[in-house]
């Protein structure tokens, strides 16, 4: 089985989003998902005492950790080793792939099971493993479906939201050659049976990491299905891959995040399974992995850490900003063209990948702020997007005409006389082109505006002219 997770070299947010807007089944699925999850987020936070201050606390823990990140990573590494685990340091995606391939080769691994991990998605791990003739199975139900369909996840916590039950049933039938009715129950039962065989055969389990506790060398895995727990328990080798930003200092910090994560993501008080994994199985134990490997990955994060975009490293990947975002709600995850979608994806994809190829993303926001309001660690996403927009201008990645327009506009605006002249001229021009008081078509770059809207022409007398008349100030 090959998985085509290759990213498009230049993803056209514009055309992809238009396509998404035209797909009725996707529109229904998106509004159902985001309405449910966003409402869950709001009610869960309002029901939790001091939730706002708890979010501030989570934020302060993240900020504090990043201010001594090197120390905490070293401590984490020491703790993991003292518990019998092994630690690997990966500067980039290639390093992670090599490290895992190396372990697989040395330990005669043939079959690998994975539980949903955005980090491994980010580094296109499956491609590399399959290329090395290893069998890799995604075990999260949604991810399993997507692996069969050779598609990418479109939501952080509901990766297959873009597919209908009929599409999934057809897919399972044709890929597995087993008939199944398009009922979620029946399909889940089929998947359970299939994946159980995979778990029993697997030599290695690969997971991501939700949190890593420096003090104790514990990695924390959160899931609702239990596949992360299986992946970290059944195969003889467990490899966990984490970005450097996943570390938290101490065990006492963990309940702060546990209380926030599920509430933010789905509105649950806690996800069904939260596992604290501290090293491999102990010598007297018969169940659990015999080896535990932790891969600590940079992949561009240190560049972000030392920049004004640092706050983006607070993200705990809950997906709350996606559900809250009116743009995501309309276009879905695939339009963003990266591993991460929604508002945080519009920040992370240009940072992790590059700004030039993703120049559409920082502007794919009305800056309404609902992402920040829903975020369990209150990341100032609108502010970060504006910073990226500024980088686009500084690197001259915005069209020349656009920059010229802004220059001329500002030139006018700092000259009140010129501003008055220009605004009355514009008003006159608009009244000239209008039918009645309304413009139904506008030219040039603002043409799109009038596809759905009319524009009311300005009245003849502006406020400032009225004011002057009122106060008898001569013109």
């Amino acid at each position, binding site marked *: 089985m090959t998985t085509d997770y290759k990213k498009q070299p230049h993803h056209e947010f514009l055309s992809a989003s238009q396509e998404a807007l035209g797909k009725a089944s996707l529109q229904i699925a998106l509004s159902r998902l985001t309405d449910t999850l966003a409402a869950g987020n709001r009610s869960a936070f309002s029901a939790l005492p001091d939730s706002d201050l708890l979010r501030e606390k989570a934020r302060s823990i993240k900020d504090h950790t990043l201010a001594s990140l090197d120390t905490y990573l070293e401590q984490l590494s020491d703790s993991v080793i003292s518990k019998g685990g092994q630690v690997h340091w990966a500067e980039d995606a290639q390093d992670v792939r090599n490290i895992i391939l190396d372990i697989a080769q040395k330990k005669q691994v043939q079959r690998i099971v994975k539980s949903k991990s955005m980090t491994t998605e980010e580094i296109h791990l499956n491609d590399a493993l399959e290329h090395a003739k290893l069998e890799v199975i995604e075990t999260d139900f949604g991810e399993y479906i997507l692996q069969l369909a050779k598609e990418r996840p479109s939501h952080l916590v509901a990766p297959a939201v873009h597919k209908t039950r009929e599409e999934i049933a057809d897919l399972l039938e044709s890929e597995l050659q087993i008939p199944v009715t398009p009922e979620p129950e029946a399909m889940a039962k089929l998947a359970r049976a299939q994946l159980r065989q995979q778990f029993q055969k697997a030599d290695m389990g690969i997971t991501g990491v939700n949190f890593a506790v420096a003090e104790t060398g514990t990695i924390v895995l959160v899931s609702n299905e239990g596949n992360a727990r299986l992946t970290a328990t059944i195969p003889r080798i467990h490899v966990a891959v984490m970005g450097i930003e996943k570390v938290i200092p101490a065990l006492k910090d963990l309940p702060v995040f546990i209380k926030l994560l599920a509430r933010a993501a789905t509105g649950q008080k806690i996800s069904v399974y939260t596992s604290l994994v501290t090293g491999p199985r102990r010598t007297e134990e018969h169940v659990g992995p015999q080896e535990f490997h932790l891969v600590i990955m940079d992949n561009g994060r240190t560049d972000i850490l030392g920049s004004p975009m640092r706050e983006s490293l607070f993200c705990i990947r809950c997906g709350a900003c996606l559900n809250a975002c009116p743009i995501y709600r*309309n276009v879905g995850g695939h339009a963003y063209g990266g591993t991460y979608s929604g508002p945080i994806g519009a920040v992370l994809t240009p940072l992790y990948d590059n700004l030039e190829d993703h120049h559409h993303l920082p502007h794919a926001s009305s800056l309404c702020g609902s992402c920040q309001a829903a975020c369990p660690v209150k990341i100032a996403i609108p502010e970060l997007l504006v910073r990226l927009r500024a980088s686009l201008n500084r690197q001259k990645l915005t069209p020349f005409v656009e920059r010229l327009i802004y220059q001329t506009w500002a030139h006018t605006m700092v000259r009140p006389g010129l501003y008055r002249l220009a605004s009355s001229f514009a008003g006159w021009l608009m009244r000239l082109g209008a039918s009645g008081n309304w413009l139904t078509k506008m030219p040039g770059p603002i043409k799109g505006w009038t596809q759905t809207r009319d524009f009311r022409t300005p009245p003849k007398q502006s406020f400032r002219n009225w004011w002057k008349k009122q106060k008898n100030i001569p013109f």
Partner: protein
Amino acid sequence: MITCLADVLRPNVGKATVALLEHFGATVHFPEQQTCCGQPFFNSGVEKQTQQLAKHTIEVFADGRPVVTPSGSCAAMIRAEYPHVFSSSSPWHTRATELAGRTFELAEFLVHQLGVTTVDAQYDGTITYHPACHLRALQADNAVEQLLDQIKGTHCIPLRKSDQCCGFGGSFSVRYPEISGAMVNDKVSCIEETQADTVISTDTGCLMNIEGCLHRNNSKTQTMHFAELLATGLNLI
């Protein structure tokens, strides 16, 4: 501060604002050199021009009086963003922070600064209220509701998905008209569900966007700025 959009597109909002402020005992000054706070430039990441306009605005409002504006987004621009526009070592940073500390959105100024808790206003009609997104940034979102509740004769119907953006977002609506269009269509269908005569908001940008879509859909629902509603209710305009 009238804001450039209201100055040109909805001068009535300015008139209503002046009338309200005077009615509640304030003396209104209108520095005529004012133009734009620089928000469109800031939002587009045009740093140099943002600074130019911020400096211009800081100079225009240098006299130390409270600055009141009938727009949550312009107030948020000055209050939340101005201090970040200049590096903390720049003298402009100090001046920006000073201005930020005395800039208010109209409803918030009436309630929290002038202490207006009761208004004897009457407006017969059914309305629905779209809270502009920037009130989130100001954390002042209940001042408007507090005053709306006081207007006699007004039946306010709750708006579904009220806190969802109307899709304007300044340059966003020009860059991504399809997505912005889908958002405003969604907003307008929620407004039409309420069957209200009038939709109220606090930002000229949102109102311009929403009224444009309502008009395109031949809707009977009118748009009104919060200031216009309150001033009408008090028989001030």
